[in-house]
């Protein structure tokens, strides 16, 4: 038996890695198709009524017939998510910048940011609904869940500035603002984008939690509200259809943020560079 192996040459590696990528795309799709087929089969063979478990075809049908209602709900939820996300991004970054400029402020407020983060939002939501108008309360929930990763990632990024570069800025007499704009923010950018990527998904969760907590209190008619409502009416296919849309919305939000991150960082940051470079 020989222990010597010839390393694969570049020509061999390329089709190999391309094939691997194809497999990585095709495998999950195959699993999805198999899952849907099995689900449909179980429902049909056992004659399960749609109010117990609708088959995928029934869900899909509902998605189309109920599209006028569901699309409006989707828009409502997306709007809430977007507003919560924007508030979380602005608030998280602004707070991190403030903390970075003043240690006193950081020591005074950071523990409360942590407390806000570790207290389950589903428990805070009913309180918020008492004191705030429903639409504001929903956005506030999205903000509470989503701002912390932005805050902590931005703080980490601002503190990860290269020591020598910081020395260089001091040597050339850079002002605080110059150091912030030309050194700290660009250094922190990969971290900020990572935080935003997490915050995107979380703000959707925050919006959904708040919508469910608001329930019939009348927080508009978002997708989560539709799910709760359809549950009461035993309209199970519509519950599944709304859930499907929520999942899709989450995937799209994550994808868009990941794409943004990649486009912004692709020229210089390790995370956005191919392995070959």
């Amino acid at each position, binding site marked *: 038996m020989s222990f010597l192996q010839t390393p694969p040459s570049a020509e061999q590696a390329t089709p190999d890695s391309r094939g691997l990528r194809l497999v990585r795309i095709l495998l999950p799709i195959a699993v999805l198709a198999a899952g849907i087929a099995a689900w449909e089969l179980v429902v049909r063979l056992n004659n399960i009524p749609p109010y117990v478990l609708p088959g995928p075809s029934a869900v899909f049908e509902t998605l189309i017939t109920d599209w006028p209602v569901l699309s409006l709900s989707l828009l409502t939820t997306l709007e809430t998510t977007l507003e919560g996300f924007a508030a979380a991004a602005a608030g998280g970054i602004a707070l991190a910048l403030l903390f970075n400029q003043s240690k006193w402020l950081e020591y005074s407020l950071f523990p409360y940011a942590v407390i806000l983060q570790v207290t389950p939002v589903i428990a805070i939501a009913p309180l918020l609904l008492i004191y705030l108008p429903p639409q504001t309360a929903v956005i506030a929930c999205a903000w509470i869940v989503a701002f912390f990763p932005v805050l902590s990632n931005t703080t980490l990024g601002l503190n990860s500035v*290269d020591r*020598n*570069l910081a*020395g*260089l*800025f*001091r*040597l*050339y*007499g*850079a002002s605080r603002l*110059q150091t912030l704009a*030309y*050194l700290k923010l*660009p*250094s922190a*950018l990969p971290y900020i984008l990572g935080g935003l990527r997490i915050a995107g998904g979380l703000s959707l969760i925050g919006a959904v939690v708040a919508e469910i907590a608001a329930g019939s209190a009348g927080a508009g008619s978002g997708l989560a509200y539709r799910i709760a409502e359809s549950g009461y009416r035993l309209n199970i296919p519509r519950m599944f259809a709304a859930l499907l849309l929520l999942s899709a919305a989450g995937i799209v939000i994550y994808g868009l943020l990941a794409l943004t991150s990649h486009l912004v960082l692709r*020229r*210089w*940051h390790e995370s956005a*560079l191919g392995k070959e*470079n």
Partner: protein
Amino acid sequence: MAEPAALSEPDTAGLAVSLRGVTKVYDTGVAALGPLDLDVRRGEFVSLLGPSGCGKSTALRLIAGLNAPSAGTVGVLHPAGRAKAAHSIGFVFQEPTLMPWTSVRENVRLPLKLAHAPAEEADARVNEALTQVGLAEFADAYPRELSGGMKMRVSLARALVTDPQILLMDEPFAALDEITRFRLNNDLLALWRNLRKTVIFVTHSVFESVYLSQRVIVMTSRPGRITAEIRIDAPEPRGEDFRTSPTYAGYCREVSNALAPSYSGQQGA
């Protein structure tokens, strides 16, 4: 930032840097340096040579004003018409210390941008500095697209762009391969001959210090002190001929001997 005291030009007789009784004790109580007395004339090329931890980098950071001395005075020449020490000193770190998120051109422009230099003047000086280090064609590249030696050249161009009187270099070529290091040594000497900057060059390589400098200052560690000072009287311009000459070998032996006591006390070095 600890601003070093300004040397007034008339009464310092052509000195660019003057340290008197300078010590540095870190917060942990470790005495890193001194007391140290050092004078460097204008236009002189001086190397600080010593084992790791002998405080040579600390001395350089004190001269740059990046750290404040615990005692003693640090005097640095401020040419007339320039307000800040920042402009009279260029600093090259051990690593290239470039901003990865922006182009070579913007990296070199940084000192001018921080000083609010007019855009047109800045453009011209950036181009000049990049030409001096032979990187004019790579102005729009990003640092990660360059080799280690090229990154170091960008770092050098950035130090030169403010046209400083004094160039402080902290083991700039230590991480490079020998061939690249030789080339950069030659280029640095050529730059020094043309521009006549005052260069203080920190290194732990005997061969590099002898090849480059007019004066080698040998330091010992804990706390860092000067143990020997060797003048290298070799004809200019120096080139590959000098690197292979008996004179060079002789100086290297002399400097090595001067350095030996610094190492004998160290265990496991």
